[in-house]
């Protein structure tokens, strides 16, 4: 399959858009008509053909434009990419993992040629053809983590494992749901999650950490997380919150369908072989409300989830003020019919919506 890469922006005129293909494969995060925190881990061993779960590192129509946006963010604020000194080996582990996976999963787009430590990496969509020596930083234009994550969609946290904990000791974070790598770098698992409400008391983080500490090589795991974003803005950073926060107030009943986006993170977890670190890719997918409403099941379900979400979560996720307007919009599509279980849209069998 050849991917047609969009030429689009995630800022200013926001020309980002999803094709019908991208909407159908959007990782809708709600498997039932309500939502509450859970550890919700599963093995990351592929998924239905064409879904975002199929490949180890999903490449989609937004790839080239997302990488352009990342370069703009980094030029503006180099602190979005940091690696503590002991994390360089984990950076090489990550580079190897991504290069091997992408060249195997997308042989028409990426090639990796290895002769001992002499490696040649070809990235056709981005027009890159670099030869370098594996484990020799001087042969790459950036450190290994920065080099490969400038070519990979989604954020990447690289975690060190010691003292029965995970430590946020390196990362490339430019498409984040309002957290700061520069502030959180060096923190352990409980510390960087400290601001999350309710989940500590529910024991979520203790159980999640126990699971993550035991992830083995070759047995990656995945989960979904979600929030809401007004406009298809990838860089919802705290650093720039004083600039983008005001965009939340631009919603109107007329523009909410186009402007309000469900933001979903496909989080995956890979044990790294040399460093024993944990790679934690956080891939962001955006879909406008009006595009979501083209899938009848999602149209019915999203209204019910947003309506019944506890106030603490709507506040933490930053949409408590806009929730009434969201419900006015989404409510039009909810005809009260039951929905089928699971996250997939089942658009061939789900009855059409009365409106929309």
């Amino acid at each position, binding site marked *: 399959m050849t991917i047609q890469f969009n030429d689009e922006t995630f800022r200013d005129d926001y020309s980002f858009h999803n094709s019908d293909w991208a909407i159908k494969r959007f990782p809708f995060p709600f498997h039932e008509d309500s939502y509450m925190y859970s550890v919700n881990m599963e093995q990351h061993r592929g998924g239905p053909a064409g879904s975002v779960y199929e490949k180890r590192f999903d490449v989609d129509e937004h790839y080239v434009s997302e990488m352009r946006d990342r370069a703009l963010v980094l030029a503006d604020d180099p*602190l979005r990419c940091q690696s503590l000194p002991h994390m360089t080996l984990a950076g090489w582990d990550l580079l190897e993992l991504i290069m091997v996976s992408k060249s195997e999963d997308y042989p028409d787009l990426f090639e990796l040629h290895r002769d001992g430590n002499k490696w040649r990496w070809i990235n056709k969509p981005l027009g890159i053809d670099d030869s370098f020596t594996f484990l020799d930083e001087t042969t790459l234009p950036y450190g290994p983590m920065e080099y490969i994550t400038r070519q990979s969609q989604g954020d990447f946290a690289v975690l060190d494992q010691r003292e029965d904990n995970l430590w946020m000791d390196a990362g490339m974070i430019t498409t984040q749901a309002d957290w*700061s790598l*520069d*502030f*959180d*770098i*060096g*923190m352990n698992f*409980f*510390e*960087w*999650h*400290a*601001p999350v409400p309710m989940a*500590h008391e529910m024991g979520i983080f203790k159980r999640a950490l126990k699971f993550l500490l035991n992830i083995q090589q070759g047995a990656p795991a995945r989960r979904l997380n979600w929030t809401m974003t007004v406009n298809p803005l990838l860089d919802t950073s*705290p*650093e*720039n*919150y*004083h*600039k*983008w*926060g*005001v965009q*939340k*107030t631009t919603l109107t009943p007329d523009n909410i369908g186009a402007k309000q986006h469900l933001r979903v993170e496909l989080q995956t977890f890979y044990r790294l072989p040399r460093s024993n670190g944990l790679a934690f890719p956080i891939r962001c997918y955006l879909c406008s409300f009006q595009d979501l409403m083209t899938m009848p099941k999602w149209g019915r379900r999203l209204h019910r989830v947003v309506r019944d979400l506890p106030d603490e979560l709507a506040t933490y996720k930053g949409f408590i*003020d806009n929730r009434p307007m969201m419900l006015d919009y989404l409510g039009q599509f909810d005809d009260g019919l039951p929905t089928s279980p699971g996250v997939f849209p089942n658009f061939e069998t789900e009855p059409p919506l009365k409106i929309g």
Partner: protein
Amino acid sequence: MMSKFAFPPSIKSRPVWGTFEARQGPAHLFIADAQGGEAILDVATPDLMASGHIIYIPRGTDFAGKLRALNPAQFYEGPSYAAAVSRIRRTLQDAKMGLQVYLAGTEGLMGQAMLEVTQAGIPHAAIQTEHRGSTARRMQCVHCKGFTEDVETYPFQCSHCGLNLFVRDHYSRRLAAYQAVCIDAEDPGNVPAPKGIYE
């Protein structure tokens, strides 16, 4: 014990301070500011002082004379933490196995000194803390990255970029600071009247 404050329960990144106890060790390093001097006076024994080094920043208080009268092996009185930090680093360079460290006073002082001490490789088990005096916080503006010292009320204005900032409990040991985030981003100009952080 008049200057001890009971901090309300908070999130897991927020530091928790202790109470000094005299420990066995070949040498004892005390770093304190303002009312932190009282914590040293409370724990001091002739034994600790015989191998004790006190680094003290009075900040307008009058404990320096009493601390000097403890007759520590070394005593330093400095005008500010920034002025004292090169001495702290030099002292830590000479630190031997078993050194006991005591940090007391404001959170800003303890946080910054903790950073120096841990970066010098002193194990956590050898470091004690005791909060005394002001509950003001050292804040980092997440937007411009500038630090504002001794923040007692919020919202406060960033001393670097001028944004009106909310005070969070999220704390970075690496920065020795709490996080400050723009309070009126979603409603520019709507800045509530300041109130005490623990009011």
